[in-house]
């Protein structure tokens, strides 16, 4: 019984010490924001991801926008294909084949423009990180670039 009390005291102390850190000013980098938003994990929507894109602002035509897809192919060549193959084979990151069937378009756009907070929260991304061991880098994609890459992914998945 006494031992438990001691443990409780220590646990309380540890808690107080751990909480002490919260008084510090949050820094603007991604690590800090992930700490800050831990409490909001339950708000995370694995279908939408986290970022500025949603059902309203990402609207796809049934058919392929060829201009977008071509621009997306060029952007992917600069920023993505060092690590991703067009097949389903994993290179550094997973292959792109079928990705537009597995994920919603806005999830994809959120992830490629805002990877760090999503890797911290998305259970599937965390599982994938255990396989790949390299966090997808933030490649500073412009919104337009991200949209074009999405279209290129659709083309890769057979959208005509």
């Amino acid at each position, binding site marked *: 019984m006494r031992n438990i009390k001691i443990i409780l005291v220590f646990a309380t102390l540890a808690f107080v010490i751990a909480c002490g850190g919260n008084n510090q000013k949050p*820094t603007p980098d991604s690590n800090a924001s992930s700490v800050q938003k831990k409490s909001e994990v339950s708000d995370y929507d694995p279908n939408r991801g986290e970022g500025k894109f949603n059902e309203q602002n990402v609207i796809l035509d049934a058919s392929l926008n060829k201009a977008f897809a071509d621009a997306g192919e060029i952007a992917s060549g*600069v920023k993505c294909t*060092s690590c991703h193959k067009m097949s389903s084979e994993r290179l*550094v990151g997973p292959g792109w084949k079928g990705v537009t069937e597995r994920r919603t378009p806005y999830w994809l756009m959120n992830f490629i423009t805002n990877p760090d907070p999503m890797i911290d929260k998305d259970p599937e991304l965390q599982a994938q990180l255990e396989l790949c*061991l390299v966090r997808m*880098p933030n*490649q500073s*994609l412009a919104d337009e670039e991200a949209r074009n890459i999405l279209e290129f992914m659709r083309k890769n998945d057979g959208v005509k």
Partner: protein
Amino acid sequence: MRTNLLNFLAGILTVLVLLSSCRPKNAATAISGDAAVKSFVAPGQYDEYYNFVSGGFSGQMSVYGLPSGRLFRVIPVFSVDPEKGWGYSEETKPMLNTSHGFVPWDDLHHVELSQTNGEINGKWVFGNANNTPRIARIDLKTFKTAEIIEIPNSAGNHSSPFGTENSEYIVAGTRFSVPPDDADGDVPIDSYKKNFKGHISFISVNQETGKMDIAFQLKTPGVNFDLARCGRAKSHGWFFFSTYNTEQANTLLEVNASQKDKDYIMAVNWKKAEEYLKAGKGKKQKVKYAHNVWDDHAHTGTSTIKTEVTVLDVSEFKDICYMIPCPKSPHGCDVDPTGEYIVGSGKLAALLPVFSFDKLQAAIANKAYDGEYEGIPVLKYEEVLYGEVKKPGLGPLHTEFDGKGFAYTSFFVSSEIVKWNIKDLTVVDRVPTFYSVGHLCIPGGNTRKPSPKYLVAYNKITKDRYLPTGPELAHSAQLFDISGDKMQMILDFPTIGEPHYAQAALADLIKNNGQLKIYKIEDNKHPRVAKGESESKVVREGNKVHVYMTAIRSHFAPDNIEGVRMGDEVYFHVTNLEQDWDVPHGFAIKGANNAELLIMPGETTTLKWVPDRVGIFPFYCTDFCSALHQEMQGYIRVSPAGSKTPLTFHVGKLPSVEKPVQ
């Protein structure tokens, strides 16, 4: 009798203890109470100020935080730096070009932050190369040396890089007077008085781009120029230069240049010089100097040799320069924030003369001259003097200002900082610095609006201060809280090289001034960039092999290269494909005779490598980049000269594996 002796000894001991307690023997005893807390900045929290500190004989500039004293970065400027590949990569080599060829080192003495209306604007910081005269401009968006300009007609560029209050000009005054570059320099050294001349360069700065140009030079008598300060506010348009060796000696200067009771502070009316230039009075002179410019889009420096400079001989114009007599071998000549007071610090003088700008103007108007010095009017000391600070200490060097009416002067010989009132010239506080203080820095201390919370003293000798590291010790900097009436030391930290001057600016001014986190890969205009792995390739051009390589967490492409032969020169053009902050990649290869590369996100950098033997050479990333950083590696195969090994390269191709026996 014995008791008396004991009492006597005890008495002496008490006196000794009392004496020694009057003056602390080391910095540790000077720090008391909550001093250390005042300098503590918790990890993750930011310092209030950036402190740009000259690296002295290291040739570099260092960046510290204040009040923490934490070293953030060493910016390579005039010396090659293998850590960053500065002066080793093909792109940076032109930055160290001079009329003497590649000069891979120098002695960076002073720093100067750019200003607008007499206040720091956070755009650039300038540094001077003392040895092979050069001025560098460092861009504070990238913390990278953006431009280096060599100074002709000069030797020992000590009196620089001091700037005017809108950075219209950065000046470079020669320390050594020498025969001008277009004259026959093959003259007897003892013909100094006849053949040796001083030159002061006014380097213009484009306010948008920062681009520098030598606007004009002033040809002066052959004295040694030491330090300088621009006029500000009411004295804007003037510049003040301290001189020594007005005796014009050429040997054993420690005696022969200390003959006169007074040397001079040379006051220059540069607006007047501009008028003469506009009127076409300048003379074009043949010279040779290098002008090196860094291009942030091509990630490449270019060096241009220039061959002409415009010179005004000040003895031909009686209203550009005036000599203010100043006791004795003046070092610092510092102008207070109002622009009215000019403080001369005679290294060998037992007093501090303070000159008045208003009295200077009146003396010039009244022609209150005391003759001429080689064609330059010499003003009467008493007519220009505001007053003297009597017996302030020994060996005054530098003065900084707090904008609240006080000046802080460093005393090299008596090792102390003395705070005094500019109006009534009385000493109000003094603190020991323990060893030979040289230079002082108050953030904005040379501007119209100082930010008087801290003062840093840079010591020249550091005996007994830190753990010994052989005969050579780190120089020490000491941070004082000057927010109250009395100075209080709150930190003592080591520096690199020998800092000769430092300036500091509010952190927000610099970190919020468009700080670059990455180079946009779209803007990369390097002629041998590979924008994406699909553009990576190896191309043979005669005996030159160009490798267009990409780097991203966690591999290079290509990572297997064959077909290089002995006698080839291999150029690795490595593009870092990352677009994320703080993810540089390194590139290093076995046996490289120069250095490694450190490639910033979105940048392309080239390492030249000449294989010296046949075999397999591994290369790898030197800057930790991810959990698989160690796997970021590859091989290059070198075959004998004339061999038929085809040039091949790839990434991700595995050897054909035989099926294991069942």
